């Protein structure tokens, strides 16, 4: 196994809650509360969880789009969080992001060409003469006609815009791409096109992906390994096949059983969790999942479960496993 391209250790992001007269900090939204993982070169790590689990915050903290509260992010041997501004700017060539909303992620005043030239201008890549050629080849690579460079985002469908968003991320030849719900806003027929494109690009450019999504089927499809988050903490990490066939954490089990399956004859045991997701501003004591867990015992309310490797490369945080 090669050395990890991205190594995240004990990443924490608390958003202060300010109240009262002087806007004193009275508490924290614990969006990300101690997440550690490593992604190897060429691998896809899927990150799943429901709203409020911190998956998006985590993605943006790794890139320092949000400044993390604590933790260590090592990329290609460099400590990302200790880089100064110019170093960080240079580092951004290596790590890119694709956003969820294809309507909000492109500047409406820029043509597609301008949007794609922007990364090259910022990092002073290629000679100005070559840049346009690069734009055309990027467009063609993501399945768009090169004459689209002169058009504006509003002339395109969601799927096409998402292709442009992907092209923008690739314009700087990154090693790592964080995909933040890249297909969630797309229709199913278009979603599959984009998923296939992402797979092809990964093979061609040896990309490493962190794929953030709430849709488990999509994550299963694209990921080599999957990490399940709940309220800013890790619940379970395992190889994709292992996680989906042999989930250990009660939350993972419930999550898997809750997905409606497109087969009217599928006979499944369904675990319906009671109650709502607790607020990350006031997470439960002990195991964060104990309030909804069907098998919780006293210990779960008091003690935070340790993060353990129960099988080879299958980690879980649960007292009962």
């Amino acid at each position, binding site marked *: 196994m090669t050395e990890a391209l991205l190594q995240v250790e004990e990443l924490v992001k608390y958003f202060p809650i300010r109240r009262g007269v002087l806007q004193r900090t009275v508490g924290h939204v614990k969006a990300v509360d101690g997440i550690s993982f490593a992604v190897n070169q060429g691998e896809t790590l899927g990150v799943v969880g429901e*709203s409020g689990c911190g998956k998006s915050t985590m993605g943006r903290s790794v890139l320092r789009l949000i400044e993390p509260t604590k933790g260590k992010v090592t990329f290609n041997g460099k400590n990302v969080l200790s880089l100064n501004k110019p170093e960080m700017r240079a580092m951004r060539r290596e790590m890119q992001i694709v956003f969820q909303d294809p309507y909000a992620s492109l500047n409406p005043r820029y043509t597609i060409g301008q949007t794609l030239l922007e990364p090259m201008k910022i990092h002073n890549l290629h000679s100005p003469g070559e840049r346009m050629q690069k734009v055309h080849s990027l467009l063609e690579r993501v399945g768009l006609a090169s004459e689209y460079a002169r058009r504006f985002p509003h002339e395109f469908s969601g799927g096409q815009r998402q292709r442009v968003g992907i092209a923008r991320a690739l314009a700087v030849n990154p090693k790592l791409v964080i995909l933040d719900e890249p297909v969630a806003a797309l229709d199913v*027929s278009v979603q599959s*096109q984009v998923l296939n494109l992402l*797979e092809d690009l990964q093979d061609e450019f040896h990309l490493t992906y962190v794929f953030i999504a709430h849709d488990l*089927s999509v994550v299963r499809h694209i990921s080599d390994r999957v990490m399940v988050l709940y309220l800013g903490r890790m619940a379970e990490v395992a190889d994709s096949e292992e996680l989906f066939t042999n989930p250990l954490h009660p939350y993972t089990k419930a999550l898997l059983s809750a997905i409606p*399956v497109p087969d009217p*004859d599928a006979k499944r045991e369904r675990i319906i969790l009671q109650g709502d997701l607790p607020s990350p501003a006031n997470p439960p004591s002990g195991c964060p999942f104990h309030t909804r867990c069907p098998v919780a015992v006293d210990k779960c309310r008091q003690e935070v479960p340790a993060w353990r490797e129960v099988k080879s490369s299958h980690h879980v945080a649960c007292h009962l496993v």
Partner: protein
Amino acid sequence: MADVLEVRDLTIEFLIEERYYRAVQGVSFDIGEGETLGLVGESGCGKSVTSLAVMRLLPTHTKVSGQVKFRGQDLLKVGEPQMRQIRGNEISMIFQEPMTSLNPVHRIGTQISESLILHRNVSAAKARAQSIDLLKLVGIPRAEQIVDEYPHQLSGGMRQRVMIAMAMACQPSVLIADEPTTALDVTIQAQILDLMRHLTAENHMSTLLITHDLGVVAEMCDRVAVMYAGQIVEQGPVREIFRHPSHPYTVGLMNCIPKIAGERKRLVPIEGNVPSLQNMGVGCRFAPRCPKAMDVCHEEPEEYSVGTEHTCRCWLHAEAGVTSR
């Protein structure tokens, strides 16, 4: 099984920049007593518009033609006061966005009571008591307190329960649910779907469930109608559709969704994009994206029978003969 709702040849045209565009064309379906019909399709296929047309909630300047028969009475022909007696009373509706579908300045109880006061002519006190019962019915804890709270104090899942309580208030015979779980998390979706399944079964309600999720259809529906670009392209009992999808679009849809179990395969996408309202083209609307397109597809196909109660709008099945509808 008597049909509670019969929709015939429903056509809806929107006014955009001084021209009318057809958002829905020739849509026909029936929903029997206690039956759940799933209307599936991608965004812009006209499924939500269809449901709003049944409720007559489309904006003015929209042309609606065809028939929407509720227990034999054509809703497109009744007067507005009469229609108001039907809305929320005989036919009620829940929407996709629980966060914005409740009025932020009125208490939960007031909003549920509104239907009761409008249709059952009950006193405010009685309406409040019934609202509490309804909140309990949809599984809301602390109903006595929640009834006096405001929407922003509740989570999305709770708000959707309130919406369901509101829809159930007058024990309607038809429930229209427009993407009721799309905005919710998976585990909350499971709760809401479970609740809806129980309530409709217990009250013997007919349901029109609009969704883009084939998984939800498979779990909830008795029959399915697949919509593409304003038309129903395939319709039939849920098992038939999943076992023997006939329309290339339905087949395409089933192949392009990643599976949660079984072997991982490369997805087979449907190429191209959903046509926009302004350029629908002629003939079969799916033809430009269809892997099996033929010359004849330049002409408009009709709905052909491909099995028991199973119809398909595709030239591939033309030899089976036009359905009686």
